[in-house]
């Protein structure tokens, strides 16, 4: 439009359009600088967090504390809906975790496939009348409860009428028999010590820690045997490869940084531990929103602020839940739309917490940050791409002789682009460096090459594409379309 207007207009107006575009370009740069600098600050905080964590490992004797008294019991909740492909393997892996006192509660949310039959057969389960509390109101009624006759009898299956993932988790909380509740996606793969690590904050600070979350990493490309990641590799396919570095930056560094600040807003649904009494107090997970796991944590902060409970939500950076990320565009698109729609809905629902000192770091810092730099980021990103297109078309117009001068000085445009792209790359590289200096899960020169290439690739197309999808998510949130259960096409764990 600007082009058409500029064409055939007096030079003054064309200049005015050029000035506007130049200023706009600078504004984009300022946004990019602020967002990236804030992330750099989070990275520094994360480094502090990791450093103190790794120091502890040497002397704190965590390994010995395994057998010690007063370790709180954990109920692992695994909601499942038509997961027959991988369910047996995930549950077997889960029930073989290293932890003194835990049970696995699988909640079948009215699957129409043979999920239940497979579980019953594989774990030699019999129907047992386990009392499922009604403290959290649920939609789908409990139909039957089964208990495994194998091993230490710590696998429980609750069959219920379909009601959605949040409803399944709520039934699980009602059925849980231990003081801590761990929420895990049926398809995430946990390291054998994950539960020990992630429940540690509860043992370290029992009075205050109310929830803890673990790192989620990308399982694609890794060798998986009997439901465990045994060899960590970079995936060879493009989309998963980019997601590895994306997860390192956003989930590992970002969350550790926020945790250090005391403003951890998101605990991944793939791996989080909560105090059961607090979940009862909160009334469980919300049915009416998409990112029910994220919403729960925001609501938890809200409750802490309103009831003046000095609670803490912490992030554990050491191992780890692994999850299979989408390999195809279509699935990735669905996932990102869903995530962003969830974020938009949560922020809208809890907008009352914004900038209220009573909610502490969460209200004053974390929520505003999420609004400015998560929720609005795709908007700015897409506008930026549109801006670039306009300016480039302007150059074309100038080459064709329609415009006398470029709308924006090409050198300036190059500088703006280079600065914002390089800054993002610096951030991602910092995440890789922190990983290299701390947990070192990846080995070998070729995997490093793949990771470095992914840093470049992320900026060429991937970011812009996901921004577009995320924008779609915001749009959906505005239109309030109905949510659906599954967002991923899952494979059996052994196949990848």
């Amino acid at each position, binding site marked *: 439009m600007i082009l058409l207007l500029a064409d055939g207009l007096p030079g003054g107006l064309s200049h005015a359009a050029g000035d506007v575009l130049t200023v706009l370009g600078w504004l984009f740069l300022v946004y990019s600088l602020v967002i990236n600098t804030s992330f750099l600050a989070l990275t520094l905080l994360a480094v502090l967090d990791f450093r103190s964590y790794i120091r502890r490992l040497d002397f704190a004797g965590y390994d*010995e504390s*395994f*057998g010690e008294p007063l370790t709180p019991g954990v109920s692992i909740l695994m909601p499942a809906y038509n997961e027959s492909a991988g369910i047996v393997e995930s549950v077997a892996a889960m029930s*073989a975790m*290293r932890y003194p006192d835990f049970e696995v509660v699988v909640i079948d949310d009215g699957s129409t496939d043979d999920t239940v039959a497979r579980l019953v057969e594989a774990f030699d389960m019999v129907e047992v009348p386990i009392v499922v509390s009604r403290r959290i109101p649920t939609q789908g009624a409990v139909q039957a409860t089964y208990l495994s006759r194998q*091993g230490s009898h710590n696998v429980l299956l609750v069959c219920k009428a379909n009601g959605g993932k949040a409803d399944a988790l709520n039934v699980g909380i009602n059925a849980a028999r231990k003081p801590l509740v761990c929420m895990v996606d049926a398809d995430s793969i946990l390291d*054998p*010590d994950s539960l020990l690590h992630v429940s540690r904050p509860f043992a370290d600070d029992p009075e205050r820690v109310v929830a803890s979350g673990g790192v989620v990493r990308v399982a694609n490309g890794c060798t998986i045997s*009997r439901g*465990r990641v045994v060899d960590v590799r970079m995936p060879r396919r493009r989309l998963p490869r980019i997601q590895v570095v994306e997860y390192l930056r956003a989930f590992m560094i970002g969350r550790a940084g926020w945790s250090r600040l005391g403003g951890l807003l998101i605990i991944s649904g793939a791996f989080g531990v909560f105090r059961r009494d607090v979940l009862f107090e909160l009334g469980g997970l919300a049915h009416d929103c998409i990112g029910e796991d994220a919403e729960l944590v925001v609501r938890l902060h809200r409750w802490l602020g309103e009831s003046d409970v000095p609670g803490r939500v912490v992030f554990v950076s050491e191992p780890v839940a692994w999850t299979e990320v989408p390999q195809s565009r279509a699935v990735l698109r669905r996932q990102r739309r869903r995530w962003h729609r969830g974020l938009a809905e949560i922020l809208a629902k809890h907008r009352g917490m914004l900038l209220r000192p009573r909610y502490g770091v969460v209200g004053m810092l974390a929520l505003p940050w999420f609004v400015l730099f998560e929720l609005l980021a795709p908007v700015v990103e897409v506008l930026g791409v549109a801006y670039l297109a306009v300016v480039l078309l302007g150059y074309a117009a100038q080459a064709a002789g329609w415009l006398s001068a470029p709308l924006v000085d090409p050198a300036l445009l190059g500088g703006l682009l280079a600065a914002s792209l390089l800054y993002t790359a610096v951030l991602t590289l910092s995440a890789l460096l922190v990983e290299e200096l701390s947990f070192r899960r990846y080995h070998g020169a070729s995997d490093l090459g793949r990771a470095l290439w992914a840093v470049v690739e992320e900026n060429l197309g991937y970011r812009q594409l996901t921004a577009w999808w995320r924008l779609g998510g915001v749009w959906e949130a505005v239109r309030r379309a109905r949510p659906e259960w599954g967002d991923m096409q899952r494979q059996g764990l052994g196949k990848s």
Partner: protein
Amino acid sequence: MAVIVVADDDADIRDLVGFKLEQSGHEVELVADGAAAVSACRERRPDLVLLDVMMPGMSGLDACRALRDDSGLATVPVILLTARAQESDIEQGFRAGADDYVVKPFSPRELASRVTAVLARRRAS
């Protein structure tokens, strides 16, 4: 003399036990978890198995049960290594089919003599 499979997730313990038993003239296979112990046993058909009770993944007790359920290994002698000198542990161990147990921290010399004793008892029967 005898083939012995040793499973412990602690590398120090593996080194200590491995060294002591090799010195006593045994052939030792060292593994770090219960599942690896079971597969090593299926392959090597050992004369004796030493299992740490607390290991990641499959615990020593589970591994012991798995061995007892395997027709070829049901009679192989098992000695448990346990960090907790608690009755419940030991009781569970015997119920899982263990022949003897050693409490950590352990005396390497005592461990070696227990191994000899268990092997001798097995040969006699």
